[in-house]
């Protein structure tokens, strides 16, 4: 077991454990914070995968914005009885079974595929992933269109969210 495998396993445990806690814990705030832990785990994973930019972006976007949004949302919709009752639906066992089935199915498929077994190749020093990423995002022949569309999407979401949440009492 090499060091990075250990680190990976630790990180995997962190992610899965906190993910489970997100899903299981009764108090919603804790769920949100566990989500933050999961996201942090995923960021570390990206770091392991040498996708530094993504790791930091993950932290900035997810933890900085989305998690905070979640916490805001939880606080805005506070009501005393909310966290009292059982948080999961009465028929929670059905999704559990489904989840397990899907997991075993996927795992079965992943293991079945030899191609997935190979280990990662070394990134040649010449390749500067960040620069390539920047270039890919804005060069016309690569992904400038999806990039622009994404920006428009964000704008629309921004306007929409403001309009819906503001509850304009006309």
């Amino acid at each position, binding site marked *: 077991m090499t*060091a990075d495998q250990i680190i990976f396993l630790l990180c995997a445990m962190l992610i899965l454990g906190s993910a489970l806690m997100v899903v299981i814990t009764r108090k919603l705030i804790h769920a949100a914070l566990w989500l933050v832990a999961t996201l942090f785990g995923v960021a570390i994973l990206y770091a392991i995968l040498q996708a530094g930019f993504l790791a*930091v972006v993950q932290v*900035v976007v997810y933890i900085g914005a989305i998690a905070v949004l979640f916490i805001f949302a939880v606080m805005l919709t506070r009501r005393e009885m909310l966290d009292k009752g059982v948080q999961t639906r009465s028929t929670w066992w059905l999704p559990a079974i489904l989840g397990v089935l899907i997991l075993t199915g996927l795992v079965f498929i992943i293991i079945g595929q030899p191609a997935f077994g190979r280990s990662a190749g070394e990134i040649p020093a010449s390749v500067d992933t960040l620069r390539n990423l920047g270039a890919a995002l804005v060069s016309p022949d690569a992904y400038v269109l999806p990039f622009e569309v994404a920006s428009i999407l964000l704008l629309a979401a921004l306007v929409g969210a403001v309009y819906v949440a503001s509850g304009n009492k006309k």
Partner: protein
Amino acid sequence: MNFLNDPINFISGWMRDLLTGWGLSNGLTTAIIYFIGITVLIIFAMTLDIILVWVERKVVARFQDRLGPNRIGPFGLIQPFADIIKLVIKEDITPAGADKLLYNLGPVLAIASVIILWAILPLSSKIFGVDLNVAVLYLVAAGALGTLSIIMGGWASNNKYALLGAFRMVANMISYEIPMVVVLLIPTILANSMSVQDITQAQSGMWFAILSPLALIIFLISAIAELGRSPFDLNEAESEIVAGFHIEYSGMKFGLFYAGELLHAFTFGGFIAVLFFGGYGGFFGLEKVGLFSWLNNPFVQAVVFLAKAMFGYWVIMWIKYSMPRIRIDHMLAFNWKFLTPLALVVLVNTAILSKVLAGLPNWGYALGMFFSNIVIGLITIEILRAYGRKQRKAEGNLTLQSAHNQEQAV
């Protein structure tokens, strides 16, 4: 590579040989070395923090035309320790109904979010945590952790005022993040890289502050807002919500918050220095001159950097203790209606000019960039004055109107 010019690698190499010698596996040794490095950095930061407490109290006193702590030890040097001991001795109360886990996690995260920053702070060309190629973004990411800590603190203390204070603080930080991120792009554009080392090297010729002073000003303002200090420190606004989110904290937890805040301020001072004042370098090419080659020595660079950082910190304190508090909606309006648009304009301007003026020699390039910023500044001032005049006129005739009404009413 001896100790003087590359201390960290030297030490790590030494340690590696030591540990491998002990038969540890390679991965394990690197893990241990990294660990030791991190602890040393943290210890350095915390000691610096204590010093800052003293500096803070002295400088604030001087601003307020008073002496500051001078009773304990010469010039009150022991005062920080006294404070720390006081905090430690204080009874540690956790409010009833508080969310134990979050309540305790709050202060820890506060300190964590600051210390994380030190990972990328370039003390000198050789002495630094890690040279991330996305350091600038890392700075913003760290900010996110800060937000989380404040929310946890506010929420967990089960106190309406704490929660409200946390909300306001978070709203403030998040909204000021936008202009900060936009402005951070400017040094990235100028230095063609997000890595702090590259930015510093890039500034050896010309400080970015000179190239885009507006960016500096906007960064300064958003940094202060990020810190939640002075004009924007509404969370501790006694008049409004007693003591903000850390109202329920007492004893060492409050101490952690307080220390975190101070260190955060200093760190941002450091970043201002790195991004706009050339960081540990920036001697306008001076260090290339034979005489001043000692300027390249890591330790000297470290001292230069710390001096610049202290200057940045001083500026922040200066603003803190001289500016009145701004109301929360003014603050937000100021940000969204004035600061963000201005930042975008400056960014666009820098992006375009950096490409357009690329051909010019260094001073021409700098001059063009500087003057463009001046022009933008003047235009904004003009717009502001027009807006103000209109506002006053509206209020003016309003008052005239009301007076008129009163005459008629009588």
